[in-house]
């Protein structure tokens, strides 16, 4: 039965690696300027983790094959070098991996989180609520009107709780259920949660960031390909969580200007 376990282990190792090697489950196309760094990091890790996984399973299989069902009284042997080799091996192998991936790979994280957005970045406010996203553009004056939670009135489409009667800045604010951005232009998303925790995840954009009630967070990105992409919520937010989604519409600069004008006219 030991031999059978060895064979099963080999099959498991190869079968597990097969879908990865043949790209049966490809990552979606990357449409961001920072995404390639994340993808590279993921790819490097896949190689290192994949080789470690397959190697460990094969070694386990080989030892199980070789050292089960031996004749009664077969002499016991010890691995040459003993525990010292194992400890040294672990420190060297994993230590190198940590250095290579852990330290060098922080670049991708840094481009998303440490580099500030450029001065010309478009500011858009995103509000997450049970179970929808809304996006607010500051309008011609470039200023967002203040938010008043007590004035939120979904029935009258006042999702953000604006007070245009008393607040000049709020009067030209544009509110949309779709995130429309120009291609190749940096966008800074100012994130605001109305009720509970949510998350903003666009697979193609390689961006995922929680909305945390009470915290003003922001992410910035540059979309590089025109198209329509799903924005989904990835933080469990209640009964409609699975259905909380919106679309990111990446358009040309001209279409973006036109869209803003059309929205302002409404």
């Amino acid at each position, binding site marked *: 039965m030991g031999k059978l376990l060895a064979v099963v282990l080999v099959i498991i190792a190869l*079968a597990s690696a097969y879908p990865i090697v043949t790209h049966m489950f490809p990552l979606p196309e990357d449409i961001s300027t920072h995404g390639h760094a994340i993808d590279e990091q993921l790819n490097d890790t896949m190689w290192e983790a994949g080789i470690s996984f397959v190697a460990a399973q094969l070694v386990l299989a080989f030892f*199980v094959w070789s*050292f089960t069902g031996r004749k009664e009284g077969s002499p016991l042997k010890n691995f040459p070098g003993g525990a010292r080799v194992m400890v040294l091996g672990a*420190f060297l192998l994993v230590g190198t991996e940590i250095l290579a991936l852990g330290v060098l790979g922080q670049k991708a994280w840094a481009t998303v989180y440490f580099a500030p957005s450029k001065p010309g970045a478009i500011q858009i406010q995103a509000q997450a609520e049970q179970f929808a996203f809304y996006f607010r553009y500051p309008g011609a004056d470039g200023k967002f009107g203040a938010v008043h939670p007590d004035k939120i009135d979904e029935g009258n489409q006042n999702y953000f709780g604006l007070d245009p009667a008393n607040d000049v800045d709020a009067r030209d604010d544009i509110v949309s259920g779709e995130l429309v951005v120009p291609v190749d232009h940096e966008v800074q998303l100012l994130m605001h949660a109305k009720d509970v925790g949510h998350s903003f995840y666009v697979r193609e954009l390689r961006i*995922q960031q929680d909305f945390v009630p*009470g*915290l003003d967070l922001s992410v910035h990105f540059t979309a590089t390909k025109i198209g329509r992409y799903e924005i989904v919520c990835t933080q*469990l937010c*209640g009964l409609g969580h699975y259905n909380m989604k919106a679309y990111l519409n990446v358009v040309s600069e001209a279409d973006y200007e036109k869209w803003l004008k059309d929205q302002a006219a409404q």
Partner: protein
Amino acid sequence: MEEGSVQQAHVHAPPEGFLRKHVFSLDHKVIGKQYYGLALVAVFTGMILSWLMRIHMVWPTAKIPLLEHLSSAGAPGGVITPEYYLSLMTMHGTLMVFFVLTNAPFAAFGNYFLPIQIGAEDMAFPRFNMMSFWVTFTAWVVLMLAFFIPDGPPISGWTSYAPLSAVGKDAGPGMQYGMSLWGLSIAIFCIGSLLGALNFIATTLDLRAKGMTLMRMPLCTWAWFITSCIALLAFAVLLPACILLILDRHAGTSFYVPGGLVISDRLQPHSGGSPLLWQHLFWFFGHPEVYIAILPSMGIVSHILVNSMRKPLLSSKVVIYSMMSIGFLSYMVWGHHMFLSGMNPISALAFSFPTLTITIPATVLTLIWLGSLYGANIQINSASLFALGFISMFVAGGVSGFFLAQPSIDIYLHATYFVVGHFHMVMGVASLFGVFAGTYFWFPKMSGRMMSEPLGKLHFWITFIGTYCIFMPFHYLGLIGNVRRYQSFVDDFMAPYLGVHKFVTVVALITGAAQFLFLYNLIYSRFKGKPAPDNPWNATTLEWSIPSPPPWNNFGDRHPIVYHDPFQYGVKGSKGDYVMQDSPEQVVPASGD
């Protein structure tokens, strides 16, 4: 203290009467079996919940018989609603993490075997011990009540993130009384675990038999001891966290809820709290909890491997130090659950580094297990199959942790099925493999009867292959961005991959059904199994030096004296190729060495 001095007096008198013998027993062995029984009930409940979730995910309109009687609102006509899916998910996670993965490998086996393995008559505080079980049992009753109230169980997942969990009925179905029961249950559970952990530590330090030095303790005793130290610190943080949650919900405080939140069209009467406070407190417990689940299984597997290989590990000291380092590092990594939570991005790097570093002791352990197999004479039986399967599973679940430890990759993989695959393999299944191995190994001692080996092996094959077929595809689905905690996959890109989910559901049904083989084997063997000798595996540790099943005071009137470490295999002993720990004979190396 002087070793063995406490052994002079009986810890308690022989039990009399049904209640004292079987219900409110002070005997650590009965308490261990009670924990095991509770874990067994919880694991089958949790598994059936996962079946319901898997079925609903791929056949959303399927009518499930009987379910309507459990919750007419959650499953009208037997069809699960989206919110009831979340209730099932929350209860699945909570039952499995707390009542199975904490109870079975740690509390159940630890209670039964820790005192015997160190040569003690019972735990240091038998009454505390009885209390910790009954407190834990109460926690389970309180949690299960949530199924039977009109509100239903909570829908916020086993992590219960605030403010969803802290604002009451405005947050949705199950969030009024169901959520309160959850908070209360976990708070009670913490008290039970704290009492248990204290008892384990005191017992290990104070009640060791003469000659049982720390380094002569079996590796599973070491694992339980280290785990109790982790549990003591972890549950001591979760307890106040739950109390604050209950206060937020019922006393009008605002520890976790900031001002200005509008939930269900109602401006919430809270201000000044922080949702991140809950996350920090929860994960300060939550990450060490992963090791509370897996360390005992590492110990059990090491213990069984040594016996099955008929030779010592390359170095037991290295195993002990690796387990200690894992325990120590487990307190510095909780923030890797929160890379995207909005905490300062610099702290992500600070949490990433120790998370990657924990891979080193984990790799050392794996290499020691692997390297020790070399040149061994491995005996294959149900216990050793599960122990070997544990190594395979631990590696599979471990390498995927390498992805998630890196914040930049976590941006993409966070909250996808990759994470679900990762933690199910490493903390769920690997840990359960330790429990299965332990059960097949120790059942003869606990019941006085052998388990059926053919059934045990069949159970292993279906479980081992099934587990890979369920959780490997989860990793692949994560790569394409399949988001977790969704009751159905409405996203357009998921359409081509629904077949994968169907495959997983079918395998989960088969693998789950195989667990009933295990249950049958347990019950059948308990009554009809072949009578077990005192030492069926030719093992060296003290539990095998006493009758199967052991008498109420373990060693009778004998005070065992320990002469050897537990690794005397592959030698020339009077009984065969091993020398027991309490045998005064000289160890003679086998010829050829």
